């Protein structure tokens, strides 16, 4: 058969080449059987539940070792669900009033509860209906006394299924699974989450058609980078992907060796490498990739995820969590950075013809001080839990900085008056993302502790090229000398006035510029977490002599 290509969502960036194993579940065919002795049926139910809980506690222990406590907790929840009063009352009620077998009562109850979750608005809760079915199937399997098959692969295989229940994912023997592919599933499903934690490439939501085309034992290529799955690849494709796979493995092994090492050039110049994140859930990746701190924490998610202005308490919790998780490492939180292109309904921003040059970022904060005040109070309150830097976006002038710093002082004096503690070593800094800020950086550097260059905006404002317009691509030279000169100027001015300077835009991860930045004396580069170790590797290969 010819090679066929399918596309799904890649959840873990790696490549696997191997044979398919179509995952066969011991289908619990439940029949409705009349029973006379309902008391005996209830006893069978209790025995099966006890067995199910015993199995789950084994799975919980395994998950604890393999994927950590946070991810293992779902199995603890499963055990609690099995013991849930309403769930049990429903099962028992059906057995007693209808005089039927326990399997049937469990299946009916499972449907009822699964539907309750499936009909909820929240996608997270909808996903819980899979949990209900998972525990119910487990009890049914225990009832029929057939041990739930643990689906052990004989040799290393690519596991393909319609969807995998959480317990099924963990029960798989990790050493024998090269990858998995599921027809359904979302980024929220446990399969996706666990796959990432198990470091197994996976492609989810590939569609039913894929399973129809698939036969056991057929050769497959799974590319978790792009979400591509190829059935029956031809020889040259296999070679191409095998090479990609080797490169991945080699690269990953090499990078793992770099963990714990310094970001230092051959001749002894060191630079800090931090990570950019867009939400609290990014902290795991920051730590896993050994970043020295967080150079850009985008606070917008708090506003985007909410239906109304997030209050001080809500913000405080998020900031506290990230500071605590980073255990004293630097965390730079950028204050609200939205504009007409990143709309949030409840802000009620006017539509603008030219949002990039519009009422955005700190300009909104300075015109609507109540929003700014809430955020600054939350930030200072959280500051006692770690090493905080507050960064203001879209700064253009001395007066912008004066106003921001005055707002900080206001927040601090309010907290002091209320007796609320805050750290006195919070650093304040600004984004350098307009040519104006770079040109007067001597004046600005004297007012703040640090600069962080936002190269994406600096590029579009310097070159007068809209970065959303694909047709302008040939005109956007991200290495344009004007941009590099502006960065160099800002670096020189920062250092002359005792401030430090970092780069948090896309250019920071561009390894063809790393040497240039080191020569400019840039103190810190902040990149998305997967780039931390490759960048460290680059720094360590450079000699400035």
């Amino acid at each position: 058969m010819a090679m066929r290509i399918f596309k799904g969502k890649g959840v873990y960036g790696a490549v696997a080449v191997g044979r398919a194993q179509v995952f066969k579940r011991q289908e619990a065919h439940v029949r409705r059987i009349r029973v006379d002795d309902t008391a005996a049926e209830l006893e069978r139910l209790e025995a099966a539940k006890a067995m199910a809980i015993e199995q789950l506690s084994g799975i919980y222990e395994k998950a604890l070792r393999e994927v950590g406590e946070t991810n293992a907790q779902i199995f603890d929840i499963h055990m609690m669900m099995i013991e849930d009063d309403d769930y049990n009352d429903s099962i028992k009620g059906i057995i007693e009033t209808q005089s039927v077998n326990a399997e049937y009562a469990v299946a009916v109850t499972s449907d009822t509860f699964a539907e309750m979750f499936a009909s909820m608005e929240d996608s997270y809760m909808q996903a819980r209906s899979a949990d209900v079915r998972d525990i119910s199937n487990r009890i049914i399997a225990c009832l029929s006394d057939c041990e739930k098959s643990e689906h052990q692969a004989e040799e290393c295989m690519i596991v393909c299924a319609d969807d995998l229940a959480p317990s099924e994912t963990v029960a798989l023997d990790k050493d024998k699974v090269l990858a998995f592919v599921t027809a359904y599933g979302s980024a929220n499903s446990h399969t996706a989450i666990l796959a990432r934690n198990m470091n197994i490439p996976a492609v989810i939501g590939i569609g039913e058609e894929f399973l129809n085309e698939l036969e056991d034992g057929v050769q497959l290529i799974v590319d978790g980078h792009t979400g591509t799955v190829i059935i029956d690849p031809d020889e040259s494709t296999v070679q191409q992907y095998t090479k990609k796979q080797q490169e991945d493995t080699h690269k990953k092994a090499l990078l793992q060796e770099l963990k714990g090492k310094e970001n230092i050039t051959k001749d002894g110049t060191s630079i800090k490498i931090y990570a950019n994140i867009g939400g609290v859930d990014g902290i795991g990746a920051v730590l896993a990739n050994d970043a020295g701190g967080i150079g850009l924490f985008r606070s917008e998610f708090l506003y985007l995820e909410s239906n109304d202005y997030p209050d001080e308490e809500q913000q405080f919790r998020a900031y506290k969590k990230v500071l605590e998780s980073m255990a004293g490492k630097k965390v730079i939180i950028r204050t609200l950075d939205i504009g007409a292109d990143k709309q949030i309904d409840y802000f009620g921003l006017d539509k603008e013809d030219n949002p990039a040059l519009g009422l955005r970022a700190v300009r909104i904060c300075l015109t609507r001080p109540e929003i700014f005040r809430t955020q600054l109070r939350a930030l200072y309150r959280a500051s006692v839990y770690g090493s905080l830097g507050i960064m203001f976006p879209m700064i253009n002038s001395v007066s912008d900085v004066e106003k921001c710093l005055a707002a900080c002082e206001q927040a601090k004096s309010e907290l002091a008056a209320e007796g609320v503690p805050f750290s006195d070593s919070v650093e304040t800094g600004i984004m350098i993302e307009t040519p104006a800020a770079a040109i007067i950086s001597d004046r600005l550097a004297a007012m703040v502790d640090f600069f962080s260059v936002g190269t994406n905006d600096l590029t579009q404002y310097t070159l007068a090229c809209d970065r959303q317009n694909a047709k302008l691509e040939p005109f956007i030279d991200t290495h344009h000398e004007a941009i590099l000169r502006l960065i160099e100027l800002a670096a020189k001015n920062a250092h002359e006035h005792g401030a430090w300077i970092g780069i948090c835009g896309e250019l920071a991860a561009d390894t063809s510029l790393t040497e240039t930045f080191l020569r400019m004396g840039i103190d810190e580069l902040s990149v998305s977490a997967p780039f931390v170790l490759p960048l460290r590797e680059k720094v360590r290969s450079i000699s400035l002599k």
Partner: protein
Amino acid sequence: MKKFTYTIKDAQGIHARPAGCLVKLVKGLEGTVVTIEKNGKAVNAAKLMMLMGLGIKCGDTVTFTVEGGDEDKAEKAVLEFMTENL
């Protein structure tokens, strides 16, 4: 009987994990029945599925009722848990 309200601050709301923890806590309060109410719908907080079924989200205000046993202790324990985790 004691009654108090709480507004959820956690961005994910009362999802599976915190619901499980809350149920554990409430089950440990001997002799006290804790109910949780959202939009006129009240459930026993010791019942995991029902609690999850309320779909309590960030920004929702819920009303707790504690009845029987050491109500002061129960109120304190529940409030503490909510403030700490949600």
